[in-house]
């Protein structure tokens, strides 16, 4: 089934739903220091009130600069971090409440690919063991079947079944990322969370991995949550994109739409900042300012101090999502038609 057909068939079918997801971290100094030196409790809001849906078979991407909360969301979705508030529904089931057995069957269905293929593979395990572990854990195959399955997975990601007996250090970064992908596929998941899967790789190797990930998506009907700071990679991979700024979604739009007609001023700024490879001679707008400290974000819309369209409402009220032309943006200037 092609990607497009898959999209059409699954249009109404939501696999993952994230509702008002929030995560805060207490970054205060220790109690004694606070008492002796003074100072308040400090709470960092890494993710605030984030809502999105991912449909079966699509790739939903989250982009944002460092500190925007991308990875925190990924960790919460995969269950490595508990949300402070909000809900994550996977295939209609609330991920907070399931019993042990339910959780186990859910866990099989989503897997994660991490950024650093040097840190995400156990250096003391042979590649075969690394890939076999999830299969064994979920009791999907045993004995000779298990070995055959591992060999087949290695072939699927473009390696050789013989590589099963090697150790991770014998592979290059790109090959290691292939091993990580084979491991993610081994439990036959339908959902994979990819946290900057190619950021540590060179461009030519990145191309190999991105092509592989798209092929696998077509072959197995996978759904991806794709997290990246690289806009060109995101455009290539995603059907829909959520743009994060300081832990909040600024805009959610179809990939093509975001790149041709971004709504939110931050999305516009982000696109303007990308160096132009086509050398069209476009004079880039110089972006002013930097991301503020997330412990003390600006009031109202967190982007207002850097926003050329900001007006009196922006520092006072917090913007909510408004729809326009099929995209959604949290921006008063968009709502009032000023942009």
């Amino acid at each position, binding site marked *: 089934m092609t990607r497009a057909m898959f999209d059409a068939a699954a249009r109404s079918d939501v696999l993952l739903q994230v509702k008002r997801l929030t995560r805060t971290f207490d970054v205060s100094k220790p109690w004694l220091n606070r008492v002796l030196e003074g100072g308040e409790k400090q709470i960092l809001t890494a993710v605030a009130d984030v809502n999105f849906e991912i449909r079966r078979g699509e790739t939903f991407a989250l982009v944002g600069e460092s500190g925007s909360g991308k990875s925190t969301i990924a960790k919460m979705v995969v269950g490595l971090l508990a949300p402070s508030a909000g809900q994550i529904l996977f295939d209609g089931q609330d991920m907070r409440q399931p019993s042990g057995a339910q959780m186990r069957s859910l866990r099989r269905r989503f897997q994660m690919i991490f950024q650093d293929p040097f840190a995400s593979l156990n250096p003391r395990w042979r590649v075969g063991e690394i890939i076999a572990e999830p299969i064994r854990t979920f009791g999907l195959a045993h004995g000779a079947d298990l070995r055959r399955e591992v060999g087949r997975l290695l072939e699927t990601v473009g390696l050789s079944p013989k590589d099963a007996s090697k150790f991770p250090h014998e592979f290059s970064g790109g090959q290691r990322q292939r091993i990580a992908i084979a491991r993610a596929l081994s439990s036959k998941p339908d959902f994979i969370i990819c946290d900057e899967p190619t950021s540590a790789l060179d461009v*030519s190797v990145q*191309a190999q991995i*991105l092509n592989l990930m798209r092929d696998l998506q077509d072959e197995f009907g996978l759904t991806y949550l794709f997290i990246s700071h690289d806009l*060109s990679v995101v*455009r*290539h991979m995603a059907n829909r994109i959520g743009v994060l700024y300081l832990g909040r979604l600024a805009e959610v739009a179809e990939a093509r739409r975001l790149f041709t007609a971004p709504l939110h001023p931050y999305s516009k700024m982000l696109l303007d900042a990308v*160096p132009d*490879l086509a050398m069209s001679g476009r004079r880039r707008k*110089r*972006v002013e300012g930097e991301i503020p400290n997330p412990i003390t974000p600006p009031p109202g819309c967190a982007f207002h101090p850097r926003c050329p369209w900001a007006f009196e409402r922006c520092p006072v009220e917090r913007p909510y999502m408004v729809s326009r032309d099929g995209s959604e943006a949290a921006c008063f200037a968009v709502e009032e038609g000023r942009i």
Partner: protein
Amino acid sequence: MAEPLLSVRNLVVEFPTRRGILRAIDDVSFDIHEGEVLGMVGESGAGKSITGAAIIGLIEPPGRIAGGEIWLRGQRIDNLRPKAMRKVRGRRIGMVFQDPLTSLNPLYTVAEQIVETIRTHLDVSEKEARSRAIDLLDQVGIPAARQRIDDYPHHFSGGMRQRVVIALALAAEPELVIADEPTTALDVSVQAQIIDILKELCAERGASVMLITHDMGVIAETADRVAVLYAGRMAEIGPVRNVMQDALHPYTRGLMGSIPSLTHDSDRLVQIPGSMPRLDAIPPGCAFNPRCPRAFARCPVERPYLLDQGGGRRVACWLYDDPDLPKAGESDDPRDV
């Protein structure tokens, strides 16, 4: 043409290891002209940073320059004694590295570091140096420079720190600035600011720039000419527009095609099979030949040298030695992009 500011001739850099000598840079030659920005691109391990380190005499022993010459405006600098080299480094060649935290000393204020740099190289009073330092910080876009100059590096954000590093690199009014991945550790929105500042300030001062990066977008926006390195050898060099849009070397073409586009839809990215060879296993002949869609009988046998293609373009590829062969991108092979 006038004498180049910097001329690197047949540079060879070697690292002895237990398993033999690794040649990290193998016969690389290029010039940087007055006021020019030369981009140096390549994937990790291609030798970009080592080329930069060789120019400023900072190859870590036991690595060493095993051959070739480096000339800075008519003066040979690759064989200078450490003391003489220190006068070149910082004074005539400024440096900007990837990680601004490691290039600043956390125990000294920004003022102390810039003033020290200025006074080491230029004969000015403490007071004069300080006012120059404030000017510099102002020019690199640090708000309230007069107050912030007495802050420590950790008081600054990543982007601001990189501005301080640029101020430091320009402090002694160098003729050449070597910027090694100056924006890689920064977010996109800040990246653009830093590149603009580096470009503007060097242009104002007439300083040349050697910009080392793996980011083709940064090169496209900044460089006048670009050199492409592969496995420690130069694959291609030419004006940036030519190299980015109509590269001659099959490696450069593959590399450019493998970058996802921001404006065009494509189902698949161009894929160069395999990966760059390790330095202890560089194939004979052309280092790229096992991965090259256009390799032919001559490639695994003879090592190509840079062939002049006119218009300042040179390419190390045998396809260009034979006028009858279709050039890279002109054959029927679908892999040949």
